[in-house]
């Protein structure tokens, strides 16, 4: 900073209408500061923030050619911005202004020590001047931002985010791993709290999204590469072949001819599907896809074709393509907890199923009576908190050694919703519900609990350390019926038996396995394995990686409403970031002096922000290079550098040292 | 302030008070009551710091009311805390405040 212009400092001490001057002898401060090096003008004023006060500063800058301004007044939180504006109006770089707090930090807290307060004011102001001498003009970091967002995940959250972002005139590319859009919501029939048809609502949104000119959708596509920084990310996407060209018409025949039958994941394995399939009638896109994992390329499907062979290819030819995007929305969603073998009899008795399976069963089942395994279900028990609210030492840990100690948030209302539907459709059925706490928290949710009660669902409350047991019913005479036994705390701890034909486990929510995406995006999961936000209140949908935001259940269990709200909030953040086509960041970031840097890499080691500092070859030597877009400006690197080659712009170490010296100095012009 | 200004101001305030007669009167009564209660509360503190139940016993005023006045006075440094006696804080007048 050798060729810096000679500092010409203007320094002003505010009376604050007596708030400062009643304690601090402002005139003395003014006189004392006049004697300091580089101080060209020193004045006081009754109220610096008034128009007159600000006009005075502007006039002085013009008249005396001031290039640094220091004002001692109220706390910087109140008026630092005001005076930056003043300075800017006078044609000076706003960062050549320094604000010293001498009201909250001085006059108001030393009322009975006028002399001490005056001396302190002089020292603080002198320190301010010392810093001002070293101030550099700064410019906000402006990055051009690609007005294009990548959304990972084509469930309700991803779709909702796509819709909101696209409507703001920003390009959206949505990638979905599976061949079909809609995620878990497509597998539901009616949804709480409205009872609306799930797929109806979903398809309204899909139609809007797919019909929007700003949206591009790639199914069977996954993120496989990622580099760059906020506003300018390079994403590599790998798309699997669909096997069947769009617009092919002989679909039914094609599927019919496939000899393979595999469990249909759409119905959670309750039914079978072919190796060429569509998720469900009316799904988007309507074109079937070849299930590459199961297809054995027998070619039977082709037999139904009459010379249209070009429309089908049984070779999966994944292809990669690159995309430049300004921001990424992670909407990778959730998967359901898979109960352990034997957990509440799951996998042991065929009469134990999950809630998701029951919902599909209800969709597939006829109207008269509920039939499972060829037998009519007269008695049915729900068990809550399966795979949720687990406790170390009581519940079987997951393969990664962890237990799900969180509440999955949606299962209570979903269970009661199913119970009410059962009662309405099969009035004679007896329903039992084994729970720990009923958590119908949302608007319109408690009504489901009330309704279920009215529907004569019998509720039994167990404690987390004594889980219900599922055993064959000794009185069932080999009909396969089960007995659910629980120590029921509503019946003063008595053991109660419920004889049932079907046990339904309300399984919890877990994040989808997205380790590869986590690695590529450098985002971090929390202890519950869901993706972590920066702060649940300050920045609830943003990750620590600039430009990477979270939507929906990738972040934690949520219902549809909450997923949509979170997705929209994420969209708002993307719109803020990319709406202007550029990103403007505060200039208070690390800055490397290449002359001093000898590439030890200490700064890179301590930096907690991915790619904020890297070592790179500069003119043949290894130097630290800061990517301002990724730097948070904490300054950890400053203390780590052995050569003092890296510093924080606007808050530099030398400035602090100068301030410290001014405060420590015994030779201040403290006049009486 | 010149004499004339002071006069103007006095007339202005008088008119204003006439305008707000009802609220001013009510508030003045409240103020009088407050002052009387506070005298009652502060009197016993001359013999040393007191707890709320002690003050309640001496003054016959309800504890919650005393606590409110103490809190109010404490906010503007007219009363300070002086340690604790069992589960109760002790209150006293700060030095220099009568």
């Amino acid at each position: 900073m050798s060729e810096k212009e000679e500092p010409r400092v203007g320094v002003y001490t505010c009376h604050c209408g007596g708030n400062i001057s009643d304690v601090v002898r402002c005139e003395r401060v003014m006189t004392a500061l006049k004697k300091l090096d580089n101080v060209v003008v020193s004045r006081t004023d009754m109220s610096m923030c008034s128009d007159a006060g600000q006009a005075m500063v502007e006039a002085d800058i013009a008249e005396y050619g001031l290039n640094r301004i220091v004002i001692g007044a109220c706390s910087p939180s109140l008026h630092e911005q005001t005076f930056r504006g003043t300075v800017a109006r006078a044609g000076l770089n706003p960062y050549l202004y320094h604000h010293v707090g001498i009201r909250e930090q001085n006059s108001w807290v030393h009322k009975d020590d006028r002399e001490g307060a005056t001396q302190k004011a002089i020292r603080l102001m002198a320190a301010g001047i010392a810093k001002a001498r070293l101030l550099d003009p700064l410019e906000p970091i402006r990055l051009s931002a690609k007005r294009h967002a990548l959304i990972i995940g084509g469930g309700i959250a991803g779709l909702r985010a796509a819709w909101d972002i696209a409507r703001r005139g920003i390009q959206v590319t949505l990638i979905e791993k599976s061949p079909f859009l809609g995620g878990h919501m497509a597998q539901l029939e009616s949804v709480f709290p409205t009872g609306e048809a799930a797929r109806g609502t979903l398809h309204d949104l899909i139609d809007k999204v797919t019909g929007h000119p700003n949206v591009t959708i790639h199914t069977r596509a996954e993120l496989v590469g990622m580099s760059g920084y906020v506003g300018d990310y390079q994403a590599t996407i790998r798309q699997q072949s669909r096997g069947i060209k769009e617009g092919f018409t002989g679909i039914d025949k094609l599927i019919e001819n496939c000899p393979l039958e595999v469990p249909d994941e759409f119905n959670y394995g309750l039914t079978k599907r072919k190796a060429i399939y569509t998720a469900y009638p009316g799904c988007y896109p309507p074109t079937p896809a070849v299930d590459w994992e199961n297809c054995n390329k027998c070619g039977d499907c082709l037999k139904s074709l009459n010379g249209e062979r070009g429309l089908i290819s049984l070779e999966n030819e994944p292809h990669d393509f690159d995309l430049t995007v300004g921001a990424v929305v992670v909407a990778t969603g959730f998967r359901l907890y898979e109960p352990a073998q034997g957990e509440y009899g799951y996998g042991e008795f065929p009469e134990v199923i999950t809630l998701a399976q029951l919902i599909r069963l209800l969709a597939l089942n006829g109207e008269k009576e509920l039939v499972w395994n060829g037998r009519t279900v007269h008695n049915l028990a729900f068990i809550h908190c399966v795979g949720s609210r687990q406790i170390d030492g009581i519940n079987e840990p997951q393969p990664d050694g962890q237990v799900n100690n969180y509440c999955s948030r949606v299962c209570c209302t979903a269970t009661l919703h199913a119970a009410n539907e059962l009662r309405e459709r099969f009035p004679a059925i007896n329903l039992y519900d084994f729970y720990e706490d009923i958590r119908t928290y949302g608007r319109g949710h408690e009504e489901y609990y009330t309704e279920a009660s009215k529907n004569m669902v019998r509720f039994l409350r167990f404690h987390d350390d004594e889980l219900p047991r599922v055993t064959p019913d000794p009185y069932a005479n080999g009909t396969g019926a089960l007995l659910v036994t629980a120590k029921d705390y509503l019946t003063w701890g008595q053991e109660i038996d419920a004889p049932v034909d079907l046990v339904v486990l309300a399984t919890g929510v877990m994040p989808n396995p997205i380790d590869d995406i986590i690695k590529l995006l450098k985002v971090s999961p929390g202890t519950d394995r869901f993706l972590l936000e920066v702060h649940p209140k300050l920045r609830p949908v943003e990750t620590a990686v600039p430009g990477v935001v979270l939507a929906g259940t990738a972040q934690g269990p949520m219902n549809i409403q909450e997923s949509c709200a979170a997705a929209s909030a994420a969209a708002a953040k993307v719109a803020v970031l990319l709406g202007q086509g550029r990103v403007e960041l505060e200039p208070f970031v690390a800055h490397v002096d290449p002359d001093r840097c000898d590439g030890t890499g200490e700064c890179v080691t301590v930096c907690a922000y991915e790619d904020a500092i890297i070592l790179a070859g500069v003119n043949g030597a290894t130097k630290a290079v800061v990517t301002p877009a990724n730097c948070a400006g904490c300054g950890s690197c400053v203390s780590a550098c052995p050569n003092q080659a890296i510093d924080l712009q606007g808050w530099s170490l030398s400035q602090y040292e100068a301030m410290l010296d001014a405060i420590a100095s015994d030779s201040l012009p403290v006049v009486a | 302030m010149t004499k004339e200004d002071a006069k103007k101001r006095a007339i202005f305030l008088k008119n204003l008070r006439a305008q707000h007669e009802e609220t001013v009167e009510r508030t003045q009564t409240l103020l009088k009551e407050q002052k009387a209660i506070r005298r009652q509360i502060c009197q016993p503190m001359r013999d040393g710091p007191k707890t709320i139940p002690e003050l309640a016993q001496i003054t016959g005023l309800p504890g919650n009311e005393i606590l409110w006045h103490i809190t109010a006075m404490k906010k503007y440094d007219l009363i300070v805390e002086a340690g604790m006696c069992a589960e109760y804080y002790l209150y006293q007048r700060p030095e220099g405040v009568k």
Partner: protein
Amino acid sequence: MTQENLHVDTLVVGGGIAGMQSALDLADQGFRVALVEKEASIGGKMIALSKVFPTLDCCSCITTPKMSAVAHHENIDLLTYCEIGAIHENGGGFVADVTKKPRYVNEADCTGCRQCEYACPIDLPNAFDMDLGAMRAIRVPFSTAVPQKAVLDIENCILCGKCEQTCPVNCIDFTQQPEQFQIEADAIVLATGFGLTPTDAKKEYGAGQLLNVVDALTVERLLAPTGPYGHVLRPSDGKEPDSIAYVQCAGSRDTTLGVEYCSRVCCMYAIKQAMLLSGALPLADITIYYMDIRTFGKGYEQFYQNARAMGIEFVKGKVARITEDDDKNPVVRVELIDEGSQIVERAHDMIVLSVGMVPGYNPQAIYGVPIDASDGFIEIPSPNIAPTVTNHEGIFATGTAVSPMDIVDSIVMAGAAAAETAAYLQSRNGHSYKLPISGSMEMEVAHV
């Protein structure tokens, strides 16, 4: 200074956390926003809280940056102490009639020095401290108020003129009158917040007459570093309580009170306060009487388990009655459901009613936005897919105006309202927001 009419893109009604966040998210996108708040400071209910769950952050530390950002944002006109009288439709947009209430303080000049406050002789119950502490007839609303300006309560003023004499910048102005002005806006975001379920309605809980039975917001103030007593003391006699009990669902899930829904936040705030209280009063016994513990949010269940591990006692059973013994100790009568259904009467030093949330404001009179007859909150016709869109085109709702919710959910929903509003504004002609030139990305037809 008179308030001029404004023309903005969006009018945000309510300066609590939801309103502030919506305003910021819109302003950051380049839209002009007018934020209207009826109180003298923004911050809403959140700024009165002590610490917030589940992170136990200092609440002020989270709220004040947002308040300050709102105040300083170049795209936001902040209008405090203003009430909206009526909203008319105007060619697809809206015109709001706003009344700016007189502060009797010249806002532009006031430096927030509080000298007037010190000079004022009148002490009044401080509503910000739930009436436990005092405030002067002229005061800066609270230490972190934004704007940091004094306001005079003329209804409780003796017009002694002491403030006027003391003010260093001569900003007291007894001549101020209510000012009328209009805000033209293309869209409206309602963030009118919540009120507490009334505790005096429940005669079994003392109908609000028992001094040591307080509501949870009172305890927030007791716990806040800037609270009225500076310690946790019970209101009847300033005793430091040894035994504190929480009564859950004291205003929710109860047909006899007409509030049948769950207020969603009470379990967590009770647990949080219990934890903070055991920090402030390490020897105190803390009990929470509950029906269901609903710790459903991210990190909430762990929070609950931590509280259990800390020794906070959770008792399943709805408190049926609260009475008072001779020492003004409140006594609960409850069935210990998990312990063999015994009926017990237990005396505590202080009882906290975990009151719930009711709508803070009925917008129907001036906006014509329908509310739900069953719960009084703003009706959302399609809550799943469009949780912030009301029945009225161009009007959006967010935060606790829509339903009870905690701060995290309010902030997320505020972002959602901003996204929805922004898209709405963009879809309209003649909006002030200039659509940036499309990027270099070619318009691709959706394909698979």
